[in-house]
């Protein structure tokens, strides 16, 4: 009997002492997006926290789907913990979908925050980054969005969608970002978010009941970094060029004018890049070959695309257009920003390791002088459900 007592005691000890990390789901406040701003005191961290009651389809409430939570302090981790002092539930960060940096924050450097995000066990690696262009991250996170009630998830989804169907953004997760920052021959570029203007504020539920005229969020431009500091923005066209150069375009719409007012619209369905490098007199030069497959999306006017001689014209128009994008992106990066966001340095590193060791330390200067040529090849694939424009008059 004594023995049973002791065994029971030790098992109870073992069990009583368990459950340290157990937390019921309804005791968590699930953070979906984090905004980080630079302030005078240090940082302002904004959490977008789910309100499960409002999202649940069964219970009707008048509450907002998210609760915004902001705290200011000197140190990132301590701010995140600070929240517990005011908030009934511990903030849970494993489901963070977006991390939004305020523009000031990005310009001051994001390296220290990234170290924390990698080190803390709650943060996974599958969230994306964005920069609030011209505004603060907490502003961005405070905007409610229709269709997808949770703004953080909306931001995540539309970033992925705009990457695959628009080709002006790039989704960057923490490993990519860190690799870009620590690599000598590559600099990161992150998508920017802008708040679209509207008369009505978008931080109450009322916004979901109106149809138009509200504030919204939109991905626009790409922020170019040098190491971990934001130094400038690529415009929409330059962002496109950037994405073509790094081979990040999967599907995209382009249009060209074949005369003054009529346009041909293309749907890019595939794009591949190949960067080759050669060294002449200890000076590297690059050739970027971009191969693009495109369908015809629309033809205005009476242009007959089925004519043999017109085909090459159609192709040339698009090739020139794409070349323009790429060149403008390169020009911006080389002359204005001096930041190698395309990873040309890495290409040289792989091909000419010895040369790279010499020019590594001075790469941003070297990069600005780097001769780069573009060779865009377009392959026309399909013409859609109709061949010629139906309005083309047949000459019979």
């Amino acid at each position, binding site marked *: 009997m004594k023995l049973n007592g002791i065994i029971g005691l030790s098992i109870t000890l073992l069990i009583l002492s368990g459950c340290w*990390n157990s937390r019921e789901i309804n005791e968590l406040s699930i953070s979906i997006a984090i905004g980080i701003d630079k302030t005078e005191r240090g940082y302002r961290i904004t959490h977008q926290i789910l309100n499960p009651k409002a999202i649940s389809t069964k219970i009707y409430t008048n509450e907002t789907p998210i609760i915004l939570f902001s705290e200011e302090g000197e140190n990132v981790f301590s701010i995140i913990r600070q929240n517990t002092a005011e908030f009934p539930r511990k903030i849970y960060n494993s489901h963070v979908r977006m991390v939004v940096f305020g523009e000031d924050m990005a310009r001051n450097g994001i390296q220290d925050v990234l170290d924390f995000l990698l080190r803390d066990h709650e943060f996974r*690696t*599958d969230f994306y980054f964005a920069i609030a262009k011209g505004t603060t991250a907490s502003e961005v996170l405070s905007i409610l969005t229709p269709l997808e009630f949770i703004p953080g998830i909306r931001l995540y989804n539309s970033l992925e969608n705009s990457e695959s169907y628009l080709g002006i953004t790039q989704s960057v997760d923490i*490993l990519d970002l860190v690799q870009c920052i*620590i690599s000598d021959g590559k600099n990161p570029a992150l998508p920017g978010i802008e708040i679209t203007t509207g008369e009505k504020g978008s931080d109450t539920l009322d916004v979901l009941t109106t149809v138009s005229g509200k504030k919204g969020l939109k991905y626009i431009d790409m922020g170019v970094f040098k190491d971990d500091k934001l130094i400038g923005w690529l415009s929409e066209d330059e962002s496109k060029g950037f994405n073509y150069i790094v081979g990040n375009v999967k599907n995209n719409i382009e249009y060209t004018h074949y005369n003054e007012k009529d346009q041909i619209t293309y749907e890019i369905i595939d794009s591949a890049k190949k960067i080759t490098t050669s060294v002449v007199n200890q000076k590297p030069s690059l050739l970027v070959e971009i191969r693009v497959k495109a369908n015809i999306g629309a033809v205005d006017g009476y242009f007959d695309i089925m004519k043999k001689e017109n085909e090459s014209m159609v192709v040339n128009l698009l090739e020139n257009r794409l070349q323009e994008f790429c060149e403008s992106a390169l020009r911006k990066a080389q002359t204005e920003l001096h930041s190698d966001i395309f990873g040309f340095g890495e290409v040289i590193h792989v091909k000419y390791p010895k040369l790279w060791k010499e020019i590594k330390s001075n790469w941003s200067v070297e990069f600005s002088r780097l001769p780069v040529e573009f060779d865009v090849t377009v392959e026309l694939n399909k013409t859609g459900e109709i061949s010629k424009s139906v309005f083309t008059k047949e000459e019979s």
Partner: protein
Amino acid sequence: MNKKIITNKQLFSLAAGGSIGGSVLVSAPLMAGIAKQDAWIGALIALIYGACYIFMLTCLSSQFPNMNFVEIIQTLLGKWLGSAFCVYYIFLCILLSAHIPWYVGDFLTTMVMPETPQYFVNAIYIIALAIGVSYGLEAFARASEIFLKAGSFLFILAMVLVLPNAHIGNLQPILENGILPPLKSSVVLSSFSTFTLIILLMIYPSNINEPKKASKEFVKGYIWGGFISFTSIFLSILVLGWNITSKSRYAAYILANEIEIGVIFARIEFIVFASWILTQFVVNVLYFYAGISSLAHLLKLKQSGKVILPLSLFLLALAEIIFPGNIYQENWIVFGWVPFIITLGLVLPLCLFIVYWIKRLVSGKQV
């Protein structure tokens, strides 16, 4: 004589499990720290000379088909020197049996549940360990077949699922700093996955049902284990890049974090942990078993099963103090573990081999 007999297939599993368990989650950061993007070449090199090393072990032990390692040491080195080496060997086994629970506890309290005290994680693990050892070699060898299959399957599944995230650019430039760094890094890998297999000599020739074909299975098992370790290092570098790999603590787990294919195959990094703990468990039971059976030989214990429980408790206590923190642990691996295992795993068998040859030459002359 109720000698425990295991099949060749089980030897394969034990060797492979032993080789995977020690290395798969731990060695990639160290190797990437030394050889950067060429660490995978180091893994290949380690695999090649490791196979030769295993072959040497089988050559040595097949000369003494009815003895285990402790008996071989005592026969070749004499009573006093032999016993000294045996004590050192037992020290290795017991120390390692406490290290592995520490790794499991450290992993869990670092990556998954930081608020749980490590001794609690260790206690649950060590209970399983004690059950495993007390069930005996035969039962455990059978279980190791299942552990190896399940572990390999889960690991390969994870590696296949993470392939879409691979960037071939992370491997380039190949051999930027010459062949020397990969060679150096291979020493680290083999001190985790190759030299540790010395413990299998406790069972290798004497407990096998078909000793003639066994050496082949031994080498095959090692190669399978080496292949899995290689895959983990290769993909860590391919996906994470050498820089993040070398700076992460458990690279393969972070690697599995990257798995995201549709909705189904997302957030399943725990399968890497599952495969790791399965193979880790194989290694750990082997160490504990080797420790206890050599202790039994040295002190002439009649019923060695009776000391499992007290020793398990000792392991639990030892795991609490063995590494004060992971900074200590990472230094210890380089300055303690590598020379320690090389002494026992490489130098000792080589010495035994030489002594054996000398003795044979001497006795040959006499005949």
